[in-house]
């Protein structure tokens, strides 16, 4: 197990290196930046700013400097839009917000999706199956930028249960987490239903039933571990999707997270911030993928031999 984790970690290093290099040179092609104001800057000011960011040096020098600071100090450079702030400082305050939102969305999806899927598999071809599965199909087809505003319209503006935007009180987490997690809840419920059905049709479940084991015991002791395996393998792609989903959700609910910085940096052409957020996202997704893989191996010992 330890060797497996170590191997995956070592594999991730060249991937991250390539991602960093490609992103750096891609963003170097970007025309314009936060310094292009409507009134042209005096040349000496522009020169001073370029010197401050090291933009007056040749590209390869800039690249080497960036990589050196990144590898040795984990330094993502100075932000170009918010003068005097480093990307690290800006992300240090916003990333925890995004992580919290992402985890809440993921847990929402996991808990409700799993329950819906397991219940549906136990009530196969009855209303207890059709109703959650129809909801799941809707959940997969309605995009988050439609559900988000609709949830605000109904629960915030209509019923007044929640705030329409902001990130101050615990209940401000409810609507964003739901919007972010709905698609994954729907997908997970379908996976859980399929996985459970496959297990419940096996001989050892019939044996357990014949021995008079209670339904609860059959679910908990005999089928949950195997039946939820497809859900665990889906966690990797789900994390990657939740990262992209947060771009929209943080915009809709005006949440001060890292995704808002990314979206704003995209319209401001703020290179260091785009670069920093991309790298942080890549690291995050790779780490979460690894965690999902480890969990899959833990749940399915047969994978250990591969």
């Amino acid at each position: 197990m330890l060797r497996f984790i170590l191997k995956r970690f070592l594999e991730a290093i060249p991937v991250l290196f390539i991602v960093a290099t490609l992103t750096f040179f891609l963003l170097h092609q970007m025309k314009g930046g936060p310094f292009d104001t409507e009134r042209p800057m005096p040349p000496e000011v522009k020169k001073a700013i370029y010197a401050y960011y090291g933009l007056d040096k040749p590209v390869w020098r800039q690249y080497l400097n960036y990589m050196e600071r990144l590898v040795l100090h984990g330094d993502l450079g100075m932000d170009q839009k918010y003068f005097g702030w480093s990307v690290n400082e800006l992300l240090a305050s916003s990333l925890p917000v995004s992580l919290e939102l992402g985890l809440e969305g993921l847990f929402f999806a996991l808990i409700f999706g799993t329950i819906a899927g397991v219940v549906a598999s136990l009530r196969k071809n009855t209303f207890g199956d059709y109703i959650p599965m129809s909801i799941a199909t809707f959940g997969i087809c309605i995009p988050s930028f439609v559900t988000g505003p609709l949830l605000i319209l109904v629960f915030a503006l209509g019923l007044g249960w929640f705030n329409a935007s902001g990130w101050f009180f615990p209940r401000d987490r409810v609507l964003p987490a739901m919007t972010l997690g709905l698609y994954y809840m729907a997908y997970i419920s379908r996976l859980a239903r399929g996985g459970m059905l496959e297990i419940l049709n096996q001989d050892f479940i019939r044996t357990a039933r014949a021995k008079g084991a209670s339904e609860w015991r059959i679910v908990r002791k005999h089928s949950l571990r195997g039946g939820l395996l497809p859900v665990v393998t889906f966690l990797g792609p789900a994390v990657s999707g939740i990262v992209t989903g947060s771009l929209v959700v943080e915009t809709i609910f005006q949440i001060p997270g890292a995704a808002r910085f990314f979206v704003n940096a995209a319209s401001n052409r703020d290179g260091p911030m785009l670069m920093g957020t991309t790298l942080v996202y890549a690291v995050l997704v790779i780490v979460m993928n690894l965690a999902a893989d480890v969990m899959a191996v833990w749940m399915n010992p047969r994978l250990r031999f591969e």
Partner: protein
Amino acid sequence: MTAEFPNVTQHAGEIEPGHSLWQDAWHRLRQNKLAVIGAVFVALLAIACFLTPVIAPGSYAKTNLALGAKAPSRAHLLGTDVLGRDLLARVLYGGCISLSVGLAGTFVSVVIGVLYGAISGYFGGRLDVILMRIVDIIYSLPFVVFVILVLVVFGQHIILLFMALGAVSWLDMARIIRAQVMALKKQEFIEAAVALGLRKRRIILRHLIPNVLGIVTIYATLIVPSVMLLEAFLSFLGLGVQAPMSSWGTLILDGSKNMEEYPWLLIFPGLCFSLTLFSLNFVGDGLRDALDVRASKD
């Protein structure tokens, strides 16, 4: 979407031993009520969307500032927006653009996916390992983030948007085609082609790819909704289709900005978009089930 079906039946004439397979599939597809309803819905909507620019050109841009935003009425079935523009016309126009973008993006992703998968599957060996490892790595990265970067760096050209959309969604197609080609290349007709001394390029393009086109069509129907979703996602972030053009994504974005005062501006485009995605998914799933293509997904 109905254009898909003549294709399927057309294959029945071309592939002799597969004749009954395609007919069976066609029969099974018609049994699947949800898929048929979905196909009819999308077909009608597509006809309406693509005919609007012909029948009522410019109707989407006709402003009536005195009228302003009004709720649905007899004169304007879906109401009007802030500038007094008829929402029905705008939704149909937006649909025209969303569907076109969906089809164009799908085309790009099919071209990339089929070529990549065919090369990987046909050559096998170390090249295959490397190519598939690349697919795995791209899978595990938030690829949409890179697409956004590309759009930011090179500008939001519509052609670039197609390429970017296609570039995201070719991975599944590549895996499916690779598996199919690996199975096909062991068959006699490919051995014969090799024995005749045909070039590899010719074998792949003329003999292998035509034989996987049926499966390509089916999976392409599942790519269309995902590309449309991605386009709307990018449009919602202001990176997709640019004004004066408007897709369903931009309509939803506009609607969500003042949904408190004019909820219909959000609800109707959102409903249209969701129903289309819903139907396309049913059609795609129905087609796949009808042919029972169990291509390797893992």
